[in-house]
């Protein structure tokens, strides 16, 4: 067997059979789903705490006194302040002072005055911060109550007629060239891909650096490069470890898909689907999972994304982006003798990677901006930026040019890194400066 392949095989085999790799590969998707579920659960359980809000209405703008019961107020508009499982209103004509408020059963208090009527701004006072869900419910309720007051006082319409006349426009979008629709939601999917891309390049790039440092520091590299050329050893290491990452991506994709289907089957058979449809007041009576997903505004995007295309390009951009950064990390590993010495060289190498990750937050907002276009061509950022661009649709030539630039850069970088690697791997004793490493590039190929 070709010596190069034997080295690739070693790099691959010794890593994929590690317990940590197997566990993280098999449990990754479950862990991810688990974390999301835990966040949702914690979010939900925090709203289970019943919020009791006291609305102080000095001038009986929203309330009336119950005859015969001194000081007890009731909302004029019962529908506006409907009781919810997590929110309960009480009304009073006088505000409580701090001490009395702390002793009371109320969790929050709003003083309703003319200011609210004029500026539509209210002050919510609390001892424990009210969850976002409670706050938005209060905003909606107060808004509707004020709207009713205004409609009543300023127009001849009754509120029901007013409501019928009111229109809210939803905006769907379509790219006239690529015919891609609703890119806003899709770009979120692209963003998730780019986060994984960043993570994989980073984690496995570090593997390459550590592998190089291990071989150098225990001097085993001398035996290996007496058989395989240093550049080939570096290439084999990058290839082997790159394949480890690709294996993990493949297993994660497969498991996530199975998990998604499995959840669908569970949702269909357990009636969970009907419950949640009922809660959302959906008009489509969907009994199967896919129809449910399709009819859901946020989840519907999952069916609009071209997963095959996304995964295929992810694999390509992962391998190319990984090769680019891994060769940099390999050169850094070869220049030092222990990991702690690598820090000062790592920083400049990681800046473009970090930059492309951070800049992505802006790119999902406007995937066609100049910044996004630049980053999708610039080889050090394109593997990450292209994930967002691909998810929202991008002309074929754009992908082709970006890929070609990336491949050319990878070839150049592997060649340059190979030169630094070749010299650095046999040097011991002193930490080289960047200038010295640049000089290694000039050494003859012997």
């Amino acid at each position: 067997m070709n010596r190069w392949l034997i080295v690739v095989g070693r790099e691959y085999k010794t890593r994929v059979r590690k317990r940590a790799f197997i566990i993280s590969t098999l449990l990754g998707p479950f862990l991810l789903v688990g974390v999301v579920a835990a966040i949702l659960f914690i979010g939900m359980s925090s709203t289970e705490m019943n919020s009791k809000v006291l609305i102080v209405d000095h001038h009986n703008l929203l309330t009336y006194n119950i005859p015969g019961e001194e000081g007890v107020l009731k909302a004029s508009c019962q529908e506006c302040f409907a009781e919810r499982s997590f929110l309960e209103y009480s009304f009073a004509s006088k505000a409580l002072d701090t001490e009395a408020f702390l002793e009371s059963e109320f969790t929050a208090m709003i003083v309703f005055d003319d200011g609210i009527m004029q500026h539509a701004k209210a002050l919510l006072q609390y001892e424990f911060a009210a969850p976002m869900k409670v706050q938005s419910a209060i905003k909606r309720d107060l808004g509707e109550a004020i709207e009713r007051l205004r409609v009543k006082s300023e127009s001849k319409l009754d509120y029901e007629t007013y409501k019928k006349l009111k229109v809210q426009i939803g905006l769907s979008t379509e790219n006239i060239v690529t015919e891609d629709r609703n890119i806003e939601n899709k770009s979120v999917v692209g963003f998730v891909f780019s986060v994984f891309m960043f993570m994989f390049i980073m984690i496995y790039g570090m593997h390459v650096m550590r592998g190089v440092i291990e071989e150098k520091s225990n001097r085993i590299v001398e035996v290996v490069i007496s058989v395989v050329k240093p550049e080939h050893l570096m290439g084999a290491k990058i290839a082997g470890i790159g394949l480890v990452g690709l294996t993990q991506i493949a297993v994660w994709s497969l498991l996530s898909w199975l998990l998604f289907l499995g959840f669908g089957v569970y949702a269909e058979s357990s009636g969970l689907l009907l419950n949640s449809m009922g809660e959302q007041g959906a008009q489509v009576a969907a009994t199967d999972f896919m129809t449910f997903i399709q009819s859901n505004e946020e989840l519907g995007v999952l069916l609009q994304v071209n997963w095959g295309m996304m995964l295929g390009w992810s694999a390509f951009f992962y391998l190319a982006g990984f090769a680019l950064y891994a060769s940099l990390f390999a050169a850094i590993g070869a220049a030092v003798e222990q990991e702690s010495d690598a820090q000062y060289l790592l920083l400049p190498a990681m800046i473009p990677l970090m930059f492309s990750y951070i800049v992505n937050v802006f790119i999902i907002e406007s995937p066609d901006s100049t910044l996004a276009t630049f980053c999708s061509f610039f080889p050090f950022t394109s593997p990450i930026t292209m994930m967002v661009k691909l998810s929202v649709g991008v002309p074929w030539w754009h992908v082709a040019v970006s890929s070609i630039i990336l491949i050319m850069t990878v070839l150049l970088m592997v060649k340059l890194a190979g030169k630094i690697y070749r010299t650095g791997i046999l040097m011991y004793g002193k930490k080289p400066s960047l200038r010295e490493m640049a000089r290694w590039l000039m050494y003859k190929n012997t």
Partner: protein
Amino acid sequence: MNDTPSLELFDVSKRYGTHIALDGVSLEVPQGSIFGLLGPNGAGKTTLIRMVAGITGPDQGSISFFGEAMSSEHISLLGYLPEERGLYKNMRVGEQAMYFARLRGMGKKEAERELTDWFQRLEVDGWWDKEVADLSKGMAQKIQFIVAVLHKPKFLILDEPLSGFDPINASRIRTEINRLRDEFGTTILLSTHDMSSVDELCDHVALINNGKKILEGPVNALRENARAGRIELKFRGNLIGFTAALGAGAILHEALSLGDNIHDVVLGLPPSIPIEQFLKWATTEVDVLSCTPKVVSMDEVFLHAVNAVSNTDPS
């Protein structure tokens, strides 16, 4: 023995930046020899070894194996044990040895067979599935030695092969080095500081200092040369009288009185006087107990040559 040297270096130079690591070195390592490569630290031994092992190439000059210019074809003929050596920590012993055997071009079955044989020979059988991290330093070194010789290389490079071994295991490794030469005709290039192992193992040596070769040849010839006609004479009699009688015929280098009027002296004879003629004369002066050519250790050869060069070469 075939006359073609197994390794031939011709006018080999290597520089790193402004530092000249090797400067026009030529060497011939005869087939089937144990060739000692000697020299002080920083002399250029490691550079030379790395070039012979195929790790780096010369800037100038040529290297040939068995009469052919060095190429990747020779990889499977070579075995290499570097001075500072290690093993992969995340692999098991057997698996690791197999990896290197296959890199050197051995088939799986053949490698397994040889490994089993070597493991028994060096009494490490049962270690196949051991984690490398669990090995002691000496254990790891045995494995490293096996890895270097497993594929029966025709040319074996050993850089300080005995350092770190206890005396028992060092002697076992010495036996194996000799066996490789005697049984398989392996040529061994052995770099070391340890002169006793040169005395015991090597039949040829070369001495390198400041990137230049200052001495090369068969061990016996070099010893004879360094002896420079000195003999060791043990006699009973008057030392002062004997010395006076020597006159200009021979030079007294060392003298040691052993008591009871017995003396041990080292004398330098001029090439014009054969030892037999001198002995004939000496018996007339004193009671000669023994007379032998002075035994010169490789240590002395080494020091003598290095001093000679540093005295004449200010660089």
